[in-house]
């Protein structure tokens, strides 16, 4: 914390150094970056014009311009219900993942032993486990526990896969956290939970927010586990999208995809914008 404070006074020097760094990027590196970015974004760019098409089948380039597909989406109760399901599952799962992940990160922060390392690894394991493996395991255990096709089942499974993202972002936020502040707060009369609320949490809030966004997005577009857990009465948006192309070839999915892409983009940009505004202040 003290290091950042010292930087604020001679702010001009680092800024100049940074701008010189930008100038030094060679043209070919910019080209590589542009090609890479295009490769990632291009499929998305195809789907957005298609969503405004007049035709009732998939076609590119789109024919004419209409909002029919969006009208379909917003009038069809099947689409709307699955959107609502996805949204609520993602919100609750993200909340749960954030609470558990933050608690784990704070708890593990000051531990260095072998057991703490082991715990950290175990908590991160779902990031590297293939989605299908998790899905099968979740399906088998949830069958036993009667959680398949329930709201609670989706929330639990999605919170579990979202939690490592919170753990990572909160852990990195804590690396800049001066643990002497905890002692200072205690000496001033604050019990541990009050200290967490008034000192720790405000100082790692960006890490928590970043983790929460990742957990939300992870749940919102998760499809493999959701396919296993789906029931006729409860399914999420990605499952409905999957159905719409495998069973009926409904071009409404173009509108749906565009909406999901925009929504996720906005959610991911919010912390970035908030962050830069705070930095400028």
């Amino acid at each position, binding site marked *: 914390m003290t290091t950042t404070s010292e930087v604020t006074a001679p702010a001009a020097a680092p800024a100049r150094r940074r701008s010189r760094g930008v100038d030094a990027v060679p043209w070919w590196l910019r080209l590589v970056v542009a090609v890479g970015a295009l490769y990632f974004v291009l499929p998305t760019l195809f789907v957005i014009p298609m969503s405004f098409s007049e035709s009732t089948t998939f076609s590119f380039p789109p024919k004419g311009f209409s909002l029919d597909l969006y009208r379909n989406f917003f009038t069809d109760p099947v689409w709307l219900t699955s959107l609502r399901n996805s949204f609520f599952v993602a919100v609750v799962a993200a909340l749960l993942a954030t609470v558990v992940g933050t608690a784990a990160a704070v708890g593990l922060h000051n531990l260095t032993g072998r057991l703490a390392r082991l715990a950290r690894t175990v908590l991160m394991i779902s990031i590297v486990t293939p989605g299908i493996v998790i899905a099968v395991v979740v399906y088998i255990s949830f069958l036993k526990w009667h959680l398949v096709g329930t709201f609670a089942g989706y929330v639990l499974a999605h919170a579990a896969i979202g939690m490592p993202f919170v753990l990572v972002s909160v852990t990195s936020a804590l690396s800049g956290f001066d643990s002497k502040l905890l002692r200072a707060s205690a000496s001033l009369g604050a*019990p541990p939970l009050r200290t967490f609320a008034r000192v720790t949490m405000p*100082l790692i809030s960006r890490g928590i927010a970043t983790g929460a966004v990742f957990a939300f997005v992870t749940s919102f577009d998760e499809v493999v586990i959701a396919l296993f857990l789906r029931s006729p009465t409860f399914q999420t948006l990605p499952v409905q999208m999957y159905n719409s192309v495998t069973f009926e070839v409904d071009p409404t999915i173009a509108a749906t995809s565009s909406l999901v892409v925009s929504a996720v983009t906005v959610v991911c940009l919010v912390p970035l914008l908030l962050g830069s505004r705070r930095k400028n202040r």
Partner: protein
Amino acid sequence: MPATTAMPAVAPVLSKAGTQIRLTDVVKDYGLAVPAVDGVSLTIEPGEFMTLLGPSGSGKTTTLNLIAGFETLTSGHISFNGDDVSSLPPHKRNLGMLFQNYALFPHMTVAQNVAYPLRERKVPKAEISRRVAEVLELVQLPGRDDNVPSQLSGGQQQRVALARAIVFGPKALLLDEPLGALDRNLRGALQTEIQRIHREVGSTFVFVTHDQEEAMSLSDRIALFNMGRIEQVGSPETLYKAPETLFTARFLGDSNVFELDSAPGSTAVWQDRTWTVEPRTVSDRARSSSSAALVVRPEDVHIAGAADAVPPGASAAPATVADVQYLGSYRTVVLTYAGGVVGRARLDASETQLSLGQSVVAWWRVEQQRVVSR
């Protein structure tokens, strides 16, 4: 930093009566080869400025953390004014604490930092702003209420930390090397400040440092730590003039040390020299110890050109001049005694020139030597 000529009249913010802090057979064992604190008993009197001094790893900081409640006791007791607080968590001990790196909350303004302990104690809003203004006046930092800590210099940050640590009227103030991160001039100014506030509020201060000069200039008493134990407790003058052990003599100031082969009686024998020893210059620990050393402070050592120039009755030892350092108001002469023992004499700058390699006789009065255990 402004010199403190006019002292602002401010109501006491620390509890004026002061608190007695008593440590009884305190042990902290982390399971390493030796316990960090190994049986410390110490009574800090109400209103006293007590310094825990010692080299790093001597257990002084651990002892302070035990008083603060940040560490749990392995065994022993700690009491404040007779009440056992050994198992009380830190937030219930009601002690102010200053840290080396200030430990200000970076996301709060100066005023919010200082108000923190008052808000914790549910003090009414109007009362909070009155007391915050008052204490910022006391530490001579008014008008910076809305700054965040990163906009302040190190010295100003430590003043805010000091204000925050005393604003709620704690039982005592614990200071964990609070001046260690500051440069020399600033350290002097803040030393004066801490001393002034101690005088003004008369509360108990427990100060941890490894800097012997800082300890000497600030403290009522010093507890000198060595390897998890207290080597000696006493006023700065006692520790300097009447050290019990060689460790104390060496840690506080320079000494000419002559390690004796046998415990001294009425005479001390060192190599081929025999010196008269007055009983009152022998420390208690040396009397009961099997090995002893005779120490003489540099300012008590005189230099004569030849043995016949030494006054009768004084102790003398031949030496060669190894170095002469001119330090303005005085000179330090580095001497090599027999057997390669190195010592120092502090002479007036005006005294006769000595040349390097010259053979001289160092002498001192018998009442100015001290026999310590080693």
